[in-house]
């Protein structure tokens, strides 16, 4: 007893010093996050000064990209990045959340562990490998089977009109969806697992079916967390470079049809940065990087604000 009192109440022994040192060490390392963000912003800003000076705000709304004449505009790349990410989310979110529900609520016990393992392994597939598979397997298949089918059933929409030559916006969206599904699924699953069993039992006690329990007790309880999972997925979707570069077709154009090639901010930098000569060309690519950073940050903030709106106390009385 005396011993304990000595250690806690008084003498500034090694524990005290250790605590202080450890606390500051971890604080400094945590604060490195701010340093990194500032550094990224600063470096991109420095790199793109020249391009900003040359083109001003017009850079963002111009769709001209002409390295020969040193004229650059970001619009087609912004368009491509946003559209491919939206396609990916439209495909990935329902599938991921449904899978997470299946894994935590509905699947027979013996199947859960293997399925989780499969999903974790899918998450481990490097993007360049999916890109390789995309070029040589998925894109030819889409071209021969899925796209003709979509054209004949959904062809009344401008989104699904016109011929395709394989690599295109829709292929990029699909490949990005495959990439973000495991992340959204596994994070959602963690969240669903954290829903207290009492929640479910209470719903069962009211005579709810299994699906109703899932919908009323589990999904609405974990809404906030699932949105968090979707954000993680979106962050990844915007950041995807290689797989997209390999299947999107790399043509800076803005067209309604998803069967046409597009280009994203990330993939134009990946393709052209090493070959960018002169002073304005690299600077324009830096500015694209800055725009990409801006789009990412804006989307993330928007998503987090959405999250806050839905937050509240997780379990609300019906109203």
């Amino acid at each position, binding site marked *: 007893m005396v011993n304990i009192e000595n250690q806690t109440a008084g003498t500034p022994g090694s524990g005290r010093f250790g605590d202080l040192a450890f606390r500051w060490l971890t604080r400094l390392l945590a604060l490195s996050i701010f340093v990194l963000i500032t550094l990224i912003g600063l470096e991109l800003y420095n790199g793109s000064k020249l391009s900003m000076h040359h083109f001003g705000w017009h850079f963002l709304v111009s769709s001209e990209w002409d390295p020969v004449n040193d004229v650059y505009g970001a619009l087609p790349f912004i368009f491509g990045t946003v559209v491919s990410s939206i396609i990916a989310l439209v495909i990935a979110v329902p599938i991921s959340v449904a899978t997470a529900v*299946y894994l935590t609520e509905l699947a027979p016990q013996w199947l859960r562990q293997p399925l989780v393992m*499969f999903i974790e392994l899918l998450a481990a*597939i490097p993007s360049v490998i999916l890109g390789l598979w995309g070029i040589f397997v998925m894109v030819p298949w889409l071209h021969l089977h899925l796209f003709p089918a979509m054209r004949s059933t959904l062809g009344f929409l401008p989104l699904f009109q016109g011929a395709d030559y394989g690599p295109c916006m829709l292929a990029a969206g699909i490949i990005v969806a495959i990439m973000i599904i495991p992340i959204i699924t596994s994070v959602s699953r963690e969240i669903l697992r954290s829903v207290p069993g009492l929640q479910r039992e209470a719903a069962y006690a009211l005579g709810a079916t299994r699906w109703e329990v899932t919908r009323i007790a589990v999904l609405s309880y974990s809404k906030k967390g699932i949105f968090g999972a979707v954000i993680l997925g979106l962050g990844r979707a915007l950041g995807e470079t290689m797989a997209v570069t390999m299947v999107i077709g790399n043509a800076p154009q803005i067209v309604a049809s998803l069967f046409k090639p597009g280009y994203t901010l990330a993939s134009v930098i990946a393709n052209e940065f090493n070959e960018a000569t002169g002073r304005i060309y690299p600077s324009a690519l830096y500015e694209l990087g800055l725009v990409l950073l801006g789009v990412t940050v804006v989307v993330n903030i928007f998503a987090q604000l959405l999250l806050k709106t839905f937050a509240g106390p997780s379990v609300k009385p019906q109203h």
Partner: protein
Amino acid sequence: MTASNHHWRQFKNLFMQGLTLVCAVLVVLPLLLVFFHLVKEGFGALNWNFFTKLPKAVGEPGGGMANAIAGTFILLGQAALVGVPVGVLGGVYLSEYGSSKLNWWLRFAADILNGVPSITWGIVVYALMVVPMRGPSALAGGVVLGLMMIPLVMRTTEEVLQLVPAGYREAAFALGIPQWKTIVQIVLRTALKGIVTGVLLALARVAGETAPLLFTAFGNLGWAHSLKEPIAALPLQIFNYAISPYDDWHRQAWAGALVLLLLVLVINVSVRFLTRDRFGKRQ
């Protein structure tokens, strides 16, 4: 409650259960397909030369990817040295110390940093390291991968640490154990599986990253003799071969992809088994 309503609810119940099952199958399908095609296309090109020889020019038989395989290991080692200590200890701060206001901003910043596209990291580290060092280097490649790991590891570490019951900490405080010892010896140890899983996910993610390496590690057809030279990496080599017009190189790309995937899967699976003993059965 009428009978027809009851039937309708039962039908909906079964229908939704079936739908979620279909979704689960859809999720697993790409993994099986990718694996199937990798083995089908890549296995034939795998031989002793592939692991021991340097790449050769188009049309010359017998080249390999020995330098790229070694390069990937070197880059991952450097990345872990940068990313793991900063990420884990930063996560400790978020979970164990810190005012709620500062933590809110830190989490916010970490989430945004996670959304920073890998290609952006590439050009930033290009400006920070490649320009001053007058050329791409293995060092720059390792650093860029390490920096990318930091926010990932930090967030997962924090999440995992918060799952450790407060009672563990309180029990340790009640015994008069200093907080930092409590954290290191009790909290971190209890959460080890989760932390390892987080680090693993981060490593698995950066292992496949090609974009940030394009301008930093750059790739190398031979061996890198020091960390100041450009270095080959499997993902880079796969990308360069995949977008080339040569069938020979496509075969090499498939083989390289098979090796990279096996590498990542082996790390994944072995870590799962290593950490299973203590917490595997916890439900």
